[in-house]
Structure formats: structure tokens, C-alpha cells
């Protein structure tokens, strides 16, 4: 029975993708990101053997649970659950349709009502090989008043393409801390959709840290579908070389008394390009909405580009919303202050760059995860972030 439902969904999604096709830059939602380099490759499925180098990305005993998926294959499969493919809209979003049509393994986590999971659950997605694609499909259902922290890490070697979809359902009063770390290979493409559905009084935090990948699209869609639900969206992208990362977020306030707080920060060096395209919709019924959205960007070179497009769509007048964005260089006054105390120019710059990022990094609760993020940041920008001998 479940197999039939799944087959139907697959079939519908495949048909839909055939109709929608690859998104084109003429479409408003894709105007900053051209996916032609993805569309032109004849992708195939990769091997499922776990490469030994992926071990440095594992947390082992430091995580409450850990699941590893290699080129989309792993020990778990979400398909078949009644909520599967219910929220991530494959009729509208081409990459979600593509994922749903080709969905492979992925985490299926169901946290029972009232359960508090200590520590964090780690989902590691490994891409390995050239011209291979993967379509991991995750479903996370957090029961009433349950609490859990989930970390998704995307890594790999080669010129592969990861097209992941995670559906996260937070039931009444659930508290969920979700982090997504994009540390893909610098030749890899990554499109990832995080679809969050919150019921009454649920509180979800999403942090998306993008350090790796040649072309990355992070799509975060949040439906605040119950009174008093709240969402925190934190994001950090540190890009260099010719990296391109597009952060596309939509927060839909459907019910009264919901809060949303969004902070995305970008650090861009060399010829990197970063995008923040964040939309907040406040529906007519969503009175007493409280919403704040900011995007701050730090440009470290003359050739780096950032596009910042915060958008508010408010359909009732009993709301408190504000948004804003900044694009700037390192603060010269702060540079002078640090140097005037004897700290060398490169180290001073590193301190300030790291300080800019730390607002997001330091808010991550799990220490091993913060350490991994710091390690990868330093690794990706060695000339910008001189070695830091201690965590604090």
C-alpha cells in the first residue's frame, strides 16, 4: 500500500518536473542563480560505499545518533509515512519535484510526544565521485512538546550534485534546533530545500552555514501554521574563489501571535557571489505578528558580489515588522584600534572577520558542531583567518 502511494507521488513529481523543467534566470525566484551548469550534465547514480576520508566529518559518540548517507544511500528511508511529501511542494518547485521523483534514502526521524532528546542527532550526507547526483529525502516529525537538535552536514569529493529535501514538522509546543552545514566540495553543486511546518506554539530554529560548494542554493520555507509559533532563521555564508551561494528564504505567517527573527550574514572574498533573498509574508489573519529580518554582508575584495533582497509582504495592519540589510567592508576604526594595541594587520583582520561570523556561529548550542564550523571556516579562508589558538 505505502509502496503504491510512494510510486504515485514519484510518478506525479516526475511528470511535474517534465513540465516545469530546470528553472530559468527569467523567473523572479531564480534571477540571481543560473542552473545551466547543473542542467547540462548527464548525471548518474553514484556508488554507495562509504569512503574512508568521510570519517573526519563524523561525530561518532559525540552525537546522540548519527546516520551516514553516501551518494543518497543509507540505512534509512522516509518514504511511506503519511506526512511524506505533504509539505515540500513539488508542484511549484522544480528541484523539489526532481527530488521527489528520484528520492533515495534519507533520515526518517519521529520524536514521540513529550520526548526530549539530549545532545544532537547528526545526519551526514557524503557526495563521492564525478557526474553523480543524489536526492536525499528526509522527514523529521517532532511530536507535541518534544525537543530535539538535528544537524545535517553535506560534504564530499568530486564534481557531484546533491539535491536534498528535508521536511520538518514541529507539532504543538515542539522545540526544534536544526542546523545545516554546507561543506560540499568546491566542484560540487548543492540544492537543498528545508521545508518547515510549525503547529501551535512550536519553536523552531534553523541555522544554515555555507562554507563549501561551487554553486549552492539553500531554500528554506517556513509555514507558521498555528497560533504562537515562532521561527528563528540564522544564516552564514563564507565564500571565496568563484563560489556562488544563493539563500532563498520564505516565512509565511498564517496565524496570529507568531514571531519570526531572521539574521543572515555573508562574508565574501575574491570573486565569490552571495545572495540573500528573503521574503516574509504576513497573511490577513496573522494579527500581532512580530517579525524582524536582517542581512549583513562583509566584502573583502573588490570583485566579490552580494545581492541582498529582503522583502516584506504585509496583509494586515496589526503587526510589528522591520527589515534591513547592509553591505560593507571591515570597520577601519576597529582595525586601527586593534593595531594600535600591537596586533598585526593580518591577525586584526582575522579577528574582525571571525567576530562578524561569530554572532551566528556562537549561537549554535552543540560545541562539537561549532568547532567543526570554525575548522572549516579557517580551512576555506587561510589567508583571511589566521590560525586561532583557542576557541574563545
Amino acid at each position: 500500500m505505502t509502496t503504491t502511494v510512494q510510486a504515485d507521488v514519484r510518478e506525479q513529481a516526475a511528470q511535474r518536473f517534465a513540465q516545469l523543467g530546470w528553472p530559468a534566470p527569467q523567473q523572479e525566484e531564480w534571477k540571481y542563480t543560473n542552473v545551466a551548469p547543473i542542467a547540462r550534465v548527464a548525471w548518474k547514480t553514484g556508488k554507495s560505499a562509504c569512503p574512508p576520508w568521510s570519517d573526519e566529518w563524523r561525530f561518532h559518540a559525540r552525537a546522540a545518533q548519527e546516520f551516514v548517507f553516501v551518494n543518497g544511500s543509507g540505512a534509512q528511508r522516509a518514504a511511506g509515512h503519511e506526512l511524506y511529501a505533504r509539505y515540500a511542494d513539488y508542484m511549484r518547485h522544480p528541484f523539489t519535484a526532481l527530488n521527489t521523483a528520484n528520492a533515495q534514502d534519507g533520515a526518517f526521524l519521529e520524536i514521540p510526544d513529550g520526548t526530549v532528546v539530549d545532545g544532537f542527532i547528526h545526519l551526514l550526507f557524503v557526495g563521492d565521485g564525478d557526474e553523480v547526483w543524489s536526492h536525499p529525502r528526509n522527514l523529521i516529525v517532532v511530536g507535541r512538546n518534544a525537543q530535539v537538535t538535528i544537524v545535517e552536514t553535506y560534504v564530499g569529493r568530486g564534481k557531484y550534485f546533491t539535491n536534498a529535501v528535508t521536511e520538518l514538522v514541529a507539532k504543538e509546543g515542539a522545540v526544534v534546533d536544526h542546523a545545516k552545514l554546507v561543506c560540499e566540495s568546491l566542484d560540487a553543486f548543492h540544492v537543498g530545500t528545508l521545508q518547515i511546518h510549525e503547529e501551535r506554539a512550536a519553536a523552531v530554529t534553523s541555522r544554515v552555514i555555507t562554507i563549501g560548494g561551487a554553486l549552492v542554493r539553500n531554500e528554506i520555507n517556513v509555514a507558521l501554521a498555528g497560533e504562537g509559533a515562532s521561527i528563528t532563521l540564522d544564516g552564514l555564508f563564507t565564500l571565496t574563489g568563484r563560489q556562488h551561494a544563493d539563500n532563498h528564504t520564505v516565512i509565511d505567517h498564517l496565524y496570529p501571535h507568531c514571531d519570526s527573527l531572521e539574521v543572515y550574514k555573508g562574508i565574501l572574498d575574491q570573486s565569490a557571489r552571495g545572495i540573500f533573498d528573503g521574503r516574509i509574508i504576513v497573511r490577513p489573519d496573522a494579527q500581532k505578528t512580530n517579525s524582524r529580518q536582517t542581512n549583513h554582508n562583509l566584502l573583502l575584495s573588490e570583485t566579490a558580489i552580494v545581492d541582498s533582497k529582503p522583502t516584506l509582504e504585509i496583509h494586515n495592519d496589526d503587526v510589528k515588522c522591520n527589515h534591513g540589510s547592509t553591505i560593507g567592508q571591515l570597520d577601519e576604526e576597529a582595525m586601527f584600534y586593534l593595531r594600535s594595541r600591537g596586533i598585526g594587520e593580518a591577525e586584526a583582520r582575522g579577528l574582525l572577520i571571525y567576530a562578524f561570523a561569530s554572532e551566528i556561529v556562537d549561537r549554535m548550542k552543540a560545541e562539537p558542531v561549532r568547532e567543526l564550523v570554525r575548522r572549516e571556516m579557517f580551512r576555506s579562508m587561510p589567508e583571511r583567518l589566521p590560525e586561532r589558538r583557542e576557541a574563545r
Partner: protein
Amino acid sequence: MLEIKNLHAGIDGKEILKGLSLEIGEGEVHAIMGPNGSGKSTLANVLAGRPKYEVTSGTVVFEGKDLLSIPTEERAREGVFLAMQYPVEIPGVNNIYFLKAALNAIRKHRGEEELDAIEFLQLARQKMKLVDLDEAFMTRSVNEGFSGGEKKRNEIFQMAVLDPKLAILDETDSGLDIDALRIVAEGVNALRSEKHSVLVITHYQRLLRYLVPDVVHVLANGQIVKSGGKELAEELEQRGYEWLEQETAAAR
């Protein structure tokens, strides 16, 4: 220790210092007073190497070295410290991490062993008492959310930790209540020794009541127009600066 000769400097193409000369010996405390716009802060900023300030002519020799030719951080490592008029807030940079990095950069330059975290904390605690700063300050970001008085005390705290040969105080007294003023003065007095020199830049005489200078200079229109003992500060406080400006104008 410090020898400034015929210094011409300014900002944005505007000349502010117009041939300033000044000599400070080892262990001396000098005060520079002067009306707003006379060039006091320009002098402090030029000595510390703040970008955008341009030196058009003149020399500054510190301990036998041409100070103007070396970058800001090296001036600090050589022993020049500027307590700033407006200390900048640096969110995300932890006070203790920052100051330890600074001290170790200076110690390394002097050929001394770097301090480890425990040694540094011991030193920092001791100096914090001197300026009556709470230990909680150490874990906060540099100057972030500090009151005006706390920022100034933090400057003096940093000075005490870094132990400079020459400390320049740029209007450290402005905006301080009498208690904070006394704390700042005590902090500076604790640094005074045969080896340490201090240059106090101020608009008012009140700091100098606690921090008695060896020499007082009056800066007007980009030049030192008068120098004298500590009584000159009192005279300025009573008579203002106008009489001096008139006297100088008449002498031209």
C-alpha cells in the same frame, strides 16, 4: 624618549599641525592643553599612526627610531600607547582574547616569553583592580555596551596591562565624573616611573590636579605657543585661552 621637530600634519588636505615641536624625556609627564580645534587630537592620532592623517613635513623620533616610518602595530610594540578619546566598540571580539593577543604580540617583539592563559589572567585580574573594573568585563566584547566612563577605564586597564614606555592620553578625562576621574588618574600614576613617560592631552585642568605634570604646554593653532610648569595649567583654567591666543597673534 620622544622628540618631535617641526611637525606639519593634517587630514583631508587640511593642515592642522603647523610646525609643532616637543621633547619628552624618560620618566616625564607632559600635559598638552589647548582650545578645541587647536590640533591636540591630531597630534595624538599622528603619533599612533591613525590612517587618513597625513604628515607633510617634520620628524618624530621615539627611542632613536623614526616613528613615522613604522606601522601602527609596530609603534605599539615599541612601547607607544594611545588611550583613545572615543574607544570603538568591537562586537564579537572578546576583551580577554584581544588583550592577550596584544600583550603577547608586544612580548614577542621584546623577545620575551608569551604568557599562557593562566598567567595572563593573573596579570589582568591584578590590573583590573587598579581601575575598579568588574571581572565580567573580560568575557564581554571589546567596549560593547560599555558606558562612557567604563570605556575610558578600559583604556587605562589596557594601558596598565601593556605597560607602554610612552602613554598618550587623548582627552581621557572628558565625560568622566569625579570618581572615574580619580580612578583614571590613579591608574596613570601607577604607571609612572623613571622609565615611563606620559603625554596627557586635555581641555581642562581638572585631571591635572590628580596627575601632576612636570611640564605643561599650550597648543594653539597647530603650534606649541607656551610651555611652563604645573602652575601654567592653573593659570589657563582661570584665564581661559583667549589671552594666549591674542598674545601669540600680537607676536606675529
